[in-house]
Each structure stands twice: as structure tokens, then as C-alpha cells.
């Protein structure tokens, strides 16, 4: 289980997260939605500590890190927590100097010290799972955006993280390429992968997420099962946002 408790984060005095708490039950998918600047990405990046919260607590499967103003966190604790997570970025961020297969192998080789043979085998299986085995030896520069993102998903899954964090995984893709990525993520969700994703993609959120959190101005404004939040939102801000998402999605066809 992933639990984030009372996270505060500000950048240069501007408070981006104002005491956010959430839990993601194992095997479920939670979508973070909300307007740009609402703190979705920051919240996600506080879970794997790419951003360090000023205060609060992050707990994943037994690893706990507490944050207090003015106290340095132990680097080993950060690493231990981070190694229970995998992350998918908006702009893929594949390693351009490695092939698709090597990208997936990298964490297994460098971090987990697997043998090349074992790493290659697991990476091959994962590329197969995301439908990219035919491109195993391709350089990222020669892959489409959707293909790059699918390799990136395999890379994130390679060390068997407890939770997959997805930061706008489809926003840099046109609808057709986004569809292949949604399909892969939906498959993972069916298999019980725990996921927390920030997204603007209504199709992604409504088809995959079991729970939805609506974030606005650094607070969680509304939360609940996705059918409820999308179907009959209560808070007027959520209502307005959901209807704007729907019109965008229809517009995109």
C-alpha cells in the first residue's frame, strides 16, 4: 500500500501542495486529475522523492520516510523508498545511448546487479508484454512516441516496483499513439499493477482508474470511485473541470 500523509511542498515560497494525504490500495489504480498547476505532477514526484516535501510522510510497503522542515532526510532511506517505485514520464526520457532492450535492462544491471543473461531475459519478456519485442534492438531516436512510451513503461516495471507512477503518460502523444499506451496501461491494470497517475486524458482515467482524486490549488477537492467523480461530481470545480475534459476528448475524436 502507498500512503502519503499531510504533504506540504512549496517552491520559492509558493505553496504547491497544502497538506495532501492519499492512499493507494494495492492492486488498484488511482488517477490524479486537475487543472495545470494544481500540483498533480509535484504530488507524484513527492511519492518517489524526485521532489523533497517540506513536511509530511511517505510510506510504501514498509518503507517510511518522514519530512520535517530543517531536517535532512537520510539518503539511504530515500533510495530504499524510491526503489519501491517505477516512473513513467510525460516525455518518455528513454536513455538515448541505449537500445530499447538495454533501456529496460539498465536498472536490473546497474541497480539490482543482475547478470546480463537474467536481465536480458526479463527485459525481453517485458518488451513482449508491451508489444515492443520486434523493436528490441532499435535506438529510441528511431521509435515513435507511443513506442518510446511503451518501452519506458517496460523500463519502469523491470525492477518489479510496488507502484507505477505515471506523470501524464499520454499528453505528449497524438490520440492514435496515446491509444496504444492506454491499451498497455489498461492491460497492466487488469493484471493488478498498482498505479498512481497524473493525467488530463479522460479516456485514460475513466477506462483504467478505479479511484479518482481531483486536485485544485494544492488540495484534494474531491475523491471517490471514478464512475462517481466523472459521472456525478459534487464540487463545482470538479464539475467544471470534468465537463471541460469531456468536450476536449470529444473534440479530439
Amino acid at each position: 500500500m502507498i500512503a502519503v500523509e499531510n504533504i506540504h511542498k512549496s517552491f520559492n515560497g509558493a505553496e504547491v501542495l497544502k497538506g495532501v494525504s492519499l492512499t493507494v490500495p494495492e492492486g488498484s489504480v488511482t488517477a490524479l486529475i486537475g487543472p495545470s498547476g494544481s500540483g498533480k505532477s509535484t504530488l507524484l514526484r513527492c511519492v518517489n522523492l524526485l521532489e523533497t516535501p517540506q513536511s509530511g510522510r511517505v510510506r510504501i510497503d514498509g518503507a517510511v520516510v518522514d519530512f520535517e522542515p530543517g531536517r535532512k532526510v537520510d539518503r539511504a532511506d530515500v533510495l530504499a523508498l524510491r526503489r519501491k517505485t517505477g516512473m513513467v514520464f510525460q516525455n518518455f526520457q528513454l536513455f538515448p545511448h541505449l537500445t530499447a532492450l538495454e533501456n529496460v535492462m539498465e536498472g536490473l544491471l546497474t541497480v539490482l546487479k543482475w547478470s546480463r543473461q537474467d536481465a536480458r531475459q526479463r527485459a525481453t519478456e517485458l518488451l513482449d508484454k508491451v508489444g515492443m519485442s520486434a523493436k528490441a534492438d532499435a535506438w529510441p531516436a528511431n521509435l515513435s512516441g507511443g513506442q518510446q512510451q511503451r518501452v519506458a513503461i517496460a523500463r519502469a516495471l523491470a525492477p518489479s516496483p510496488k507502484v507505477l507512477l505515471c506523470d501524464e503518460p499520454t499528453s505528449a502523444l497524438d490520440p492514435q499513439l496515446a491509444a496504444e499506451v492506454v491499451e498497455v496501461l489498461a492491460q497492466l491494470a487488469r493484471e493488478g499493477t498498482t498505479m498512481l497517475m497524473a493525467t488530463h486524458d479522460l479516456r485514460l482515467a475513466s477506462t483504467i482508474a478505479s479511484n479518482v482524486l481531483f486536485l485544485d490549488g494544492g488540495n484534494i477537492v474531491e475523491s471517490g470511485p471514478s464512475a462517481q467523480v466523472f459521472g456525478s461530481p459534487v464540487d463545482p470545480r470538479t464539475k467544471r473541470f470534468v465537463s471541460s475534459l469531456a468536450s476536449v476528448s470529444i473534440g479530439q475524436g
Partner: protein
Amino acid sequence: MSPWLSLMIESLPSLLWACLLFTVPLTLLSFALGLGLGFVAAITRLFAPKPFAMVVRFYVWIIRGTPLLVQLFLIFYGLPSAGIVLDAFPAALIGFTLNVGAYTSEIIRAVLLSVPKGQWEAAYSIGMTWAQALRRTILPQATRIAVPPLSNTFISLVKDTSLAAAITVPELFRAGQRIVATSYEPLILYVEVALIYLVVSSVLSSLQARVEKRFSRYGGYMEAAS
């Protein structure tokens, strides 16, 4: 055979010998050591606490702001007054290493910064430590970008080693000067010396092209962005 041509051929072995014995080792050694120094300086400047970074800035400021020839004179002719006596070759080696270190530290700093921040984050996201991210993710990409500017420094260095003649290192240029002193043919000898430098630099330039080609195998960044 014209007397000029025969003089050129006669003097060639001793010029090549000086090149092989002094110019080449001085270049290779000071480049290798200077690159190491530049790397440490760049990492310090980027990642170390402020006082250390300040020391590096001071070093780069002094070396870049003063002429190489003056630096060499200081080390070889100046330091003995302070009780530090060095042979000509070690003195030149120290001077060139310090020089290469200062210039390459700026190149290395720039190429490290040119790798997108997202690459650090991607490396961290799969659990790498800072050192692993630097070694496995950032350096391979930075190295590729660094090849042209570092080659520039290297080729300049080959020619700059001629300054070591001024502190009595018997390298290629000084060997040429010696032959001029006995043959009284400065035009022909200095043309010959210049040609040898030209050949060496050309060989290095073609090596650079090969290294760049090797690094380009995984596609350009422009392609990656499109």
C-alpha cells in the same frame, strides 16, 4: 637534387625524433592528465559545496586569464627562486596540464549541463544513486557532445607544445631552431617544421571524425526530438 630539398631530407630524422620523443609524449600526457584534472574541476564546480567550487573558479580564472608562455616561464624560471627546481620536461608537463585542465573543465561543465535534467530523473526513477546516474546515464551522453570541443583543445595543444621550446624542452620546434642555427636556412626549416605539425593535426582531425562517427550510431538528438 636541389640543396633545399636535400637539407629538408637530411634534417627530417632529427625533427621526427624530437617530435616522437618530446612533442607527442608531452601532448598525450598533459592532455590525459589535464582531462582528469578538468573532470574533477568540473564535478567540483557543479556539485561540491561552495568553498570548493570557489577554488575551482579561481584556478580557471588565473589560468585562462594569463598567457601560457608566462605560465611556463613562471614554473621553469620563476619557481627556482622559491626553492622549487624542476627539469624542463616536468615543468612543461605541469604547465600544459594546468592549462588543459582549466579549459576542459569548462567544456566538461557545459556538456554535463547540456544533458537534459529529465535524464537524471529517469536514472533516479529506476533506483540509481547519484554516482550511478552520472557514470551510466549522464557521462555517456555528455561524452558524445564533448568530442568536438575536446578535439579542438587537443589539436590546439599539439601546436601549443611548441612554446615548450622557450623553456628548453628539445621538442620539434626547438629541434628546428637548432638546425637553423647551423644551416642558416630559416625559411626552409620552419616550413618543414610547420608541415610536420600540419600532418600531426590532420591525423588527429581524422581520428576525431572517426570517434564522432562511432558516437553517432544511436541517432542524433534532432532526430530524437522530432
